[in-house]
């Protein structure tokens, strides 16, 4: 059986992580270990955006796996 995904919820969570990392990177500019790791993590978050968020933004997510209308 296929797992149904709440794509909008997944999208929201990705954007929340992104916002937190942006904030962390900015606020830890004098703390290289935190700011550089945040920047690096943001590159990974970007990959999640490419994999999902662009579709949600364009309203292209009425997919068989999606629970969203």
């Amino acid at each position, binding site marked *: 059986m296929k797992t149904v995904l709440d794509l909008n919820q997944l999208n929201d969570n990705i954007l929340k992580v992104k916002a937190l990392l942006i904030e962390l990177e900015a606020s830890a500019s004098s703390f290289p270990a935190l700011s550089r790791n945040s920047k690096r993590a943001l*590159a990974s978050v970007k*990959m999640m955006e490419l994999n999902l968020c662009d579709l949600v933004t364009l309203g292209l997510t009425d997919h068989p796996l999606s629970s969203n209308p």
Partner: protein
Amino acid sequence: MLDQEYWNPVLETLPREKLKVLQFKKFKQILTWAYTRSKFHKALYDKAGLTPDDIRSFDDIKKIPKVEKSMMREIQNKDPFPYGDALCVPLEEVSVFRQTSGTTGQPVYQPDTWQDWEWWSECWSFILWAQGYRPSDRVFLPFGYNIFVAFWAGHYAAEKLGCEVVPGGVLDTQSRILKIMELKATAMMATPTYVLNMADVAKSKMGIDPATLSINKITCAGEPGAGIPSTKRRMEEAWGAKVFDHSGATEIGAWSYECRKQPCGMHVNEAMFLVEIEDLETGEIIEEPGRKGKMVITALDRIAQPCIRFDSKDIIEWDSESCSCGRSFRLIRGGVLGRADDITKVKGVLISPAAIEEVVRSIDGLGDEFEVVVDKQGDVDRIKLKVELLPEITQISVENRLKDQLRLKTNLGYQIEYYNYGSLPRYEAKAKRFKDLRKKDTAQKEGRP
């Protein structure tokens, strides 16, 4: 999760009309990015009288001027050093350097940000997942880890998937085979030439049958071989493994892959790339299957040195069939069929080195290696084919079949030279088996270097 067929179950099955919407949006985005950040791209588009706002529909994309490798060579070695005006990010954002191999001229430098590097390995993750790589795999990478991108991103993608990665860098071929045996590696990535070369070394120098080793899948890149049925068969039989094709390039990224269904072709990753096929003579964009043309490609998400309508010179054609794996990404039939630079006329007939390879490797008594030399005898083209006979195979037993197949598949008569097994050059990465001496002859006659 592990039985999931797709790396991205949404993107890889997205209906085609939605894929086009996504591609168009991303194309405009990367075009605007390059136009506003790179003097090179701005000048190129200004000269054509175009701005990103002029691209209003998918059909408008073909108005955007193509970028050739030679243009990249001209702008490099200048500030911001060494990349020049195509760089779209501050130099301190560049975290990775690679360069092209320089087989077609001066190498081109390729800067990538860390995000770009993540993107490289993301594209490779689509490939490896589709080919059945899973966290339980122990992946051996027998390539020179250096300035060439080769399988670097495959390494990072395999790590991302959770595989165990064994970097088989500065080892000779025999040591690599021993390491595969010692660690019971299950997967490997290499050029077709090297996959065959390793098998040959294992058998002839070490007395090891590679099919008895633990490798069950091999991902190829760098040459068309894994898409050539006879070469694929030789590799699969030698290693007792599934062999999968993939295509990528330093300036482009990892843009296509064969899936586990092995549909005699590769899926274009259309979520990350826009591939157009251009008629070699008219320049018209080919939409229909079965017509060969030159690939013009855009990497939709690469930001440091964007790749927008890059004239790749790869010859491909759309497949008329869809794949039983369920991916909606289009298939290119037979993978990359050759390079526009290599497709040449001999005695007025268009030939591709891949067609000759398909014939040679379909003849059981011949070795894997061969060489094609085109020159002139007086004013007439001459094409010479050098092949190796396997031990205990006589010329007479293969001669007629080879000649007939060559005539049938390439429409040409060849001067065939037979060599003992092991006499022709062996290669560790990309092979140089096709030599066209006619241009050299003409240059010498005209006193040019």
